[in-house]
């Protein structure tokens, strides 16, 4: 580059003083002395040059001066141009000695500017913040659910060395076998055992049923559960002599809710199952038991088994095997702490050999009162690390949590796309503002940072509102928790630190996600000054529009996906509702009567049931009452092996309780023990033969009634009446089939047809029956009277769960209902957002193409065609979106097929219906801007810039 100081002009002789003219013009600007000096120097130089040139042209001194000064225009032109410059670029005041805080000051300035911009457009701001609040709030609520279930910790110490020990896969031990393992293992530092209990807790006025655990003395030690919140925890000293340790530890939550957190709870006496116990301590907060889920309110020592864990099924007070000695009644779950460094497999093998030796030496071959389950009597021991085991426990909810998370994530994405589109539209209307800022010296990065700050401010505001929404949702959920047993895991989810952190991160990510494209777009430099004001910038237009189109297509696809999911679940719920339960659901109330807790003798129990039924039947509004061992639609079952007389002993006898009903195995049958008038009360019709009669007494010939499926399974088309079957093994006692009843639901609403055998209570004593009452009035009104009647009969008996049968069915459908409702809400939200997006983009496009439309209409185009043109543009996007969404929907439905019950993964009405809905609503969204387009007045349109 040539030396700039090479001046082609002749050297000058003198300089004039122009400052007298310059200074007043610069005075108003309040420049620093140095800066003023500089400017005056430069402008003076220019004036000098001008003067010299004019003089060289032949003008006199005065004229030359005057002409030169005309360059300054009038008095304030210079100042005006200079002022605009100065004010735009005010540097931050630099305090003496202060460090360079450019960045913080900048950010604060950005924030203030952003706040001002948002305040100036309240409608836009509110709409965006609301949308974000819904999206982020939903995600936060779902995350707090995920947090409560998938991240839940067991509250035990050093979980890495703990392992669940079980027979087979999750099976239980008898106490003697457990004790053998515990006492002889070398690989485990300690092996603790527990069993689940329900106890009647009586504190003064009424009895309630509480759930808890009966645990060995080393339970809290092995699990390394922290220091007690109050008092002490159970220790091996509490586990020495049977019946000699009436002490209990209550859970932290139970202490807070039931005892109001009172400090004097330690030492308090309570009645458990009618006996006095002393509360010796409160477990630490955060410990909810050795497995996830479930509510455990108290822990009692194993030695109190006789009172706290009476045997179930067929036992009563006068026939009371000691479960601590019983060799084959299995009910103990175990967890062990491995010695440091001990690997699992050798430990497992050791336990296995100990167990086989136990079976070999201790179990006599004959005369075992209880029957082992149909599966092998000795199963291999399995040892599963605690973390892995806990993971398995979380399995059922994981799929649901993932689905829900995906759904709310999709909704948030759609919302972001909408907001991005909105910002892109706004960007073009803010071009002038941006141009001014660029002209006044802002750098592009700075500008992008400014725009991103606006987006972040919006998203943080939305996030804060979203947290409030999530908090409200979780509070509502806490206040109206699902009915007991409705969901596979219980949880209480709260907004804790992790959830808040998630919400913050999500807000920031959201802000950047929807803000980055518009920010980059809006800050493109250079073109504006040259083409000031005109909207249509050639060449640029195509690129920007594609981004918005892409966003809309994505929104449509996502919302279709959600709608399909919602549709499938709703259809599934419909099909569940349509299932015929086979009994008169809307007339029934049920009440579980757990007299086994009170150790009634057989005679006492029989009398109690008789009196209960009699007194309840006498209540006004009650048509009849009865009892049954297996609660109808209770999810549980009792399974016996079935032998038909005369067909030979093809298999061993078997009995199990508690699991799911069996459907296809002709060697097994589901069973129930029922009181008199069972079938009338429940409304189950008799198909053949007769009902149980008063003459079917204990001393008489044993009888049984089968349902239609059982009869068909065992006898095909032949008449089963008169034939005899045995549920106690191939050698009888043989029971005569006296009747066949119509099929009705046994354990669950969605089960396939199960074979069921009904045994009369009179011939088969049971403890723990459920009372069923049939009312001629709405059953809900009977609940209070029922409770009073039963409690007056036996005050120590807790009757917590009196429910109408409709409620019971509602509980079993709870999960499906919740799922369908949630998906419908989010699907609807997604639809609304997507449609708003379509409308927004199309509307913006129409306004930008106003001139083009105007020209077309002016040139005589049919308004009809213009209308179709706009609609076609919009529906093209919708069509592509639907195609993508459909593909995704089909794939997703297939993946979800396992969770879908009662509806196929390619359910035509669902797919067709959602596509039709989306298309219809989208059409409306396209029609509105289209109508606007054809109403354009060509003249005003052409005049518009």
């Amino acid at each position, binding site marked *: 580059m040539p030396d700039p*100081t090479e001046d082609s002009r002749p050297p000058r002789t003198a*300089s004039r003083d122009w400052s007298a003219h310059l200074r007043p013009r610069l005075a108003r600007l309040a420049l620093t002395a140095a800066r003023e000096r500089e*400017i005056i120097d*430069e402008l003076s*130089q220019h004036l000098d040059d001008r003067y010299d040139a004019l003089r060289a042209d032949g003008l006199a001194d005065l004229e030359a001066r005057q002409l030169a000064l*005309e360059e300054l225009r009038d008095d304030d*032109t210079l100042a005006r141009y200079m002022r605009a410059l100065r004010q735009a670029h005010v540097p931050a005041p630099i305090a003496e000695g202060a460090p360079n805080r450019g960045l913080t000051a900048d950010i604060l300035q950005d924030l203030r500017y952003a706040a001002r911009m948002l305040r100036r457009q309240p409608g836009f701001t509110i709409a965006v913040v609301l949308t974000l609040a819904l999206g982020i709030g939903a995600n936060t609520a779902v995350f707090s659910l995920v947090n409560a279930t998938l991240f839940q910790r067991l509250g035990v110490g050093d979980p890495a060395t703990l392992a669940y020990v079980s027979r087979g896969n999750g099976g239980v031990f008898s106490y003697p076998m457990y004790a053998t393992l515990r006492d002889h293992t070398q690989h485990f530092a300690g092996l603790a055992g527990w069993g689940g209990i329900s106890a009647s807790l009586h504190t003064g006025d009424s009895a309630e049923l509480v759930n808890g655990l009966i645990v060995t003395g080393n339970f809290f030690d092995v699990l390394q559960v922290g220091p007690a919140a109050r008092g002490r925890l159970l220790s091996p000293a509490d586990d020495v002599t049977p019946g000699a340790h009436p002490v209990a530890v209550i859970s932290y939550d139970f202490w807070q809710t039931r005892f109001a957190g009172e400090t004097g709870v330690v030492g308090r006496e309570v009645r458990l199952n009618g006996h006095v116990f002393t509360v010796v301590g409160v477990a630490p907060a955060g410990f909810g038991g050795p497995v996830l889920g479930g509510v455990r309110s108290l822990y009692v020592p194993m030695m109190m088994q006789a009172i706290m864990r009476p045997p179930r099924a067929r036992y009563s007070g006068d026939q009371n095997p000691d479960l601590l000695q019983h060799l084959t009644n299995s009910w103990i779950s175990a967890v062990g702490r491995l010695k440091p460094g001990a690997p699992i497999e050798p430990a497992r093998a050791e336990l296995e050999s100990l167990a086989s030796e136990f079976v070999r030496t201790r179990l006599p071959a004959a005369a075992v009162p209880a029957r082992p389950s149909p599966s092998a009597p000795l199963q291999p021991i399995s040892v599963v690390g605690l973390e892995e085991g806990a993971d398995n426990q979380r399995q059922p909810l994981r799929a649901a949590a993932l689905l829900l998370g995906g759904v709310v994530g999709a909704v948030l994405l759609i919302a972001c796309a909408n907001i991005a589109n909105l910002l892109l539209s706004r960007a073009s209307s803010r071009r002038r503002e941006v141009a001014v800022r660029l002209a006044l010296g802002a750098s592009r990065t700075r500008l992008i940072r400014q725009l991103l700050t606006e987006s972040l401010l919006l998203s943080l505001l939305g996030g804060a509102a979203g947290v409030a929404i999530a908090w409200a949702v979780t509070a509502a959920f806490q206040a109206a928790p699902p009915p007991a047993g409705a969901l596979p895991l219980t949880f209480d989810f709260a907004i804790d630190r992790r959830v808040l952190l998630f919400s913050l991160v999500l807000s920031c990510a959201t802000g950047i996600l929807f803000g980055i494209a518009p920010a980059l777009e809006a800050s493109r430099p250079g073109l504006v*000054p040259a083409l000031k004001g005109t909207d249509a910038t050639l060449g640029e237009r195509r690129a920007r529009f594609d981004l918005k189109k892409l966003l809309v297509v994505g929104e449509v696809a996502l919302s279709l996906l959600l709608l399909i999911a919602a549709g499938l679940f709703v259809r599934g719920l419909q099909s569940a509702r349509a299932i015929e339960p086979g009994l008169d659901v809307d007339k029934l109330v049920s009440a579980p009567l757990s007299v086994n807790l009170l150790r009634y003798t057989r005679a006492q129990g029989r009398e109690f049931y008789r009196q209960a039924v009699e007194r309840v039947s006498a209540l006004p509004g009650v048509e009849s009452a009865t009892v049954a061992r297996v609660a109808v639609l209770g999810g549980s079952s009792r399974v016996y092996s079935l032998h038909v007389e005369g067909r030979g002993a093809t298999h061993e006898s078997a009995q199990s309780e508690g699991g799911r009903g069996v459907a296809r195995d002709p060697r097994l049958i589901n069973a129930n023990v029922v009181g008199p008038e069972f079938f009338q009360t429940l409304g189950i019709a008799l198909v053949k033969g007769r009902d149980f009669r008063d003459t079917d007494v204990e001393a008489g010939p044993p009888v049984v009634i089968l349902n239609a499926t059982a009869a068909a399974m065992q006898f095909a088309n032949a008449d089963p009446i008169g034939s005899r079957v045995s549920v106690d093994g191939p050698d009888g006692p043989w029971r005569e089939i006296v009747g066949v009843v119509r099929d009705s639901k046994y354990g669950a609403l969605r089960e396939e047809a199960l074979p069921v055998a009904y045994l009369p209570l009179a011939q088969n004593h049971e403890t723990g029956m459920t009372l069923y009452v049939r009312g001629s009035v709405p059953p809900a009104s009977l609940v209070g009277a029922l409770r009073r009647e039963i409690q007056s009969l036996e005050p120590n008996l807790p009757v917590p769960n009196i429910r109408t049968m409709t409620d019971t069915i509602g509980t079993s459908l709870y999960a499906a209902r919740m799922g369908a409702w949630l998906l419908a809400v989010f699907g609807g939200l997604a639809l609304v957002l997507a449609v708003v997006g379509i409308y927004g983009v199309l509307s913006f496009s129409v306004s930008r193409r106003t001139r083009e439309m105007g020209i077309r209409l002016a040139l005589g185009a049919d308004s009809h065609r213009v209308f179709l043109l706009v609609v076609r543009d919009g529906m093209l996007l919708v069509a592509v979106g639907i195609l993508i969404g459909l593909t995704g929907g089909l794939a997703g439905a297939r993946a979800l097929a396992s969770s879908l019950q009662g509806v196929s993964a390619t359910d035509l009405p669902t797919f067709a219906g959602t596509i039709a809905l989306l298309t219809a609503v989208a059409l409306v969204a396209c029609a509105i801007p289209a109508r606007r387009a054809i109403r354009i007045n060509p003249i005003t349109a052409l005049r518009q810039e």
Partner: protein
Amino acid sequence: MLDRELKKGSAELIILSIVETRARHGYEISQQIEQRSAGQLKFHIASLYPLLYRLEERGWLQGRWVEKVGQRRRRYYRLTAEGRRVLASQRNTWRTFVTAMRLITGVDNA
């Protein structure tokens, strides 16, 4: 005299192209503009210098004081790398715009 509006929009492009080949001081720039446009464009002090300062603040020009014996110091402006980029871009746009104008309005070789 060309329309004020047009001049405003193209001022930057003009300045940048004047200093493209070599650095110049303010008076020289105004002279160049007047000469090259055959008297059609004239920039007076009140509009020229604020424009130069603006371009300098943006980093498209760089100004330097040069002092010679017996003379007042002068400020010379030269194009920066960024300025070169902007010049090229603005030239392009202008070219496109002019072509479009020609096509639409049928204005022949300007």
